[in-house]
C-alpha cells in the first residue's frame, strides 16, 4: 500500500468522484423526467402512443448501456448528433434510466388501492385533482425504495461512461493505473469509494422513507 502514491493521486480521484456524482445526478433528473412523462403517456387512450412507450421501455431494459452510449457517441455523428463525451454520457444514461423509471412509476400508480380513488370520486373530487392530491402523493411514498435503487443503479452504470472516455471516477482510475503501474490497489480503493457513495444513497433513501411515511 503506497500511501504516497494515493496522496498524489487523491485530487484526481476526488475530481473523478465529483464528476461521477454530478453525472449521476443529472442523468437521474433526465431519467426521472423522461420516465414520468412516458408513464403518463403510456396511460393515455391512444394505442399508437402506448405502443411507442412500450417499445422505448422494452428497448432500454433489454439493451446494455454500453451499446446505447456507442450508438449515440460513435453513431450519432452520422446523423448529425455530435456531442462531447460527457454530455453524451449524461444524455445516454438519462435515456437508459428513463425506461426503468417509467416502469417504476407505472407500478407505483397501479399499487395505489383502488378504494382510495373510488372514495375520492364518490366525494365528487374532479379527476385532475385526484391525480395531484391523491395519486401522486401516495405514489411518492411507495416509490422511494425503487427510485433510490434505480439511482444507485445509474451510479454504478456511470462507470461504463469511462469506456467512451468520460472523465469520471473509473476513467481517472484507469489513468492513474496507466501512470503508476499499480493495478489492483487503485481499483480497490475506487471500489470502496463507489461503495461508500452507494451506502450513503441507501441511507438517504431509508431516511426519506421514514420522514414521508405516516407510520
Amino acid at each position, binding site marked *: 500500500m503506497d500511501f504516497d502514491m494515493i496522496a498524489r493521486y487523491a485530487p484526481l480521484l476526488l475530481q473523478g468522484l465529483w464528476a461521477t456524482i454530478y453525472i449521476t445526478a443529472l442523468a437521474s433528473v433526465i431519467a426521472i423526467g423522461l420516465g414520468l412523462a412516458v408513464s403518463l403517456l403510456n396511460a393515455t387512450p391512444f394505442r399508437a402512443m402506448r405502443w411507442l412507450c412500450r417499445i422505448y421501455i422494452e428497448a432500454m431494459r*433489454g439493451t*446494455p448501456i454500453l451499446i446505447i452510449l456507442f*450508438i449515440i457517441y460513435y453513431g450519432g455523428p452520422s446523423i448529425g448528433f455530435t456531442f462531447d463525451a460527457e454530455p453524451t454520457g449524461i444524455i445516454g444514461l438519462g435515456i437508459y434510466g428513463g425506461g426503468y423509471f417509467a416502469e417504476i412509476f407505472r407500478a407505483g400508480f397501479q399499487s395505489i388501492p383502488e378504494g382510495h380513488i373510488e372514495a375520492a370520486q364518490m366525494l365528487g373530487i374532479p379527476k385532475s385533482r385526484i391525480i395531484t392530491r391523491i395519486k401522486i402523493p401516495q405514489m411518492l411514498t411507495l416509490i422511494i425504495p425503487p427510485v433510490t435503487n434505480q439511482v444507485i443503479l445509474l451510479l454504478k452504470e456511470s462507470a461504463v461512461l469511462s469506456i467512451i472516455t468520460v472523465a469520471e471516477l473509473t476513467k481517472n482510475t484507469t489513468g492513474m493505473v496507466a501512470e503508476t503501474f499499480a493495478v489492483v490497489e487503485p481499483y480497490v480503493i475506487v471500489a470502496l469509494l463507489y461503495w461508500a457513495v452507494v451506502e450513503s444513497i441507501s441511507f438517504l433513501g431509508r431516511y426519506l422513507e421514514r420522514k414521508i411515511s405516516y407510520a
Partner: protein
Amino acid sequence: MDFIRIITNHYDALLTGAMMTALISGISICLGMVLGLNLAFGLISKHWPIQRFCAGYRSLLRGTPMLVQLFIVFYLLPKIGLDVPSIVAAIIALTMNTTAFQAEIYRGGLLTIPPGQVEAARMLGIKTQTIRIRIIIPQLFRLVLPSLVNETIAILKNSSLISVIAVTELMRTGQQIVAVTFRPLEVYIIAAGIYLTMNISLAKLGSFAEGRLAIGTRS
C-alpha cells in the same frame, strides 16, 4: 442505412459473438446459482461470523460497479499467480457479481417459506442438508423465478462490458465490424437488436416456465 448489407456480410461473426455472449452469461449464471444458494443460506445463518461475512460480500458486490469488479479480477488474477485467459477472468468476475444478486433473491424467497415446513421435516428426523435440497430449494425456484429471469437479463447486459478486456463476444464483434465497415450507427443498432432479441426471448421463456410451474399449486 445499410442494415441489410451489414447483416448479410457479417452474420456469421455476429452469430458467433452472440453465442459467445450467451455461453459466457449462461456459465456465469449457473455457477452463480450454486454459489448464490449457498450464500443465501449463509445470509440466514445463526452463526454470526458466517452471516457477517456473507452480508459483507453481498454488500460489496452489489454496491460497486460491474466494470470496476471486472478490472479488479482481471488485474488481480495474474498477481496471485493465476495466469488465465481473459474469458476465464470475465466468467469469474460475472459469477462473483451474480452470486451476490442471486443470493439476495434467494434470501427473499427463503423468508417466505413457512418455517413450520422445516419443523415438520426436523421432527421426522430429516437432516438439514436434505431438508434444503428436497423441501426448500424446489419451492424456492417457483417463488423467485421472475426475479431470477431479471437477473439473467442483467448478466447478459453486463457481459457486454467484458469486451474491454478483449473477450470476443457480441459487443467486441460489433466493434470489429465497425472497424471494417465504418458504419457505427447501423452496426451498433444491429447489435442492440440482437441483445434485445435475446433478452425478450428470455423474458418470454420465463413467463412460460412460471406458468408451467404453477400447475401443481392451484390454491
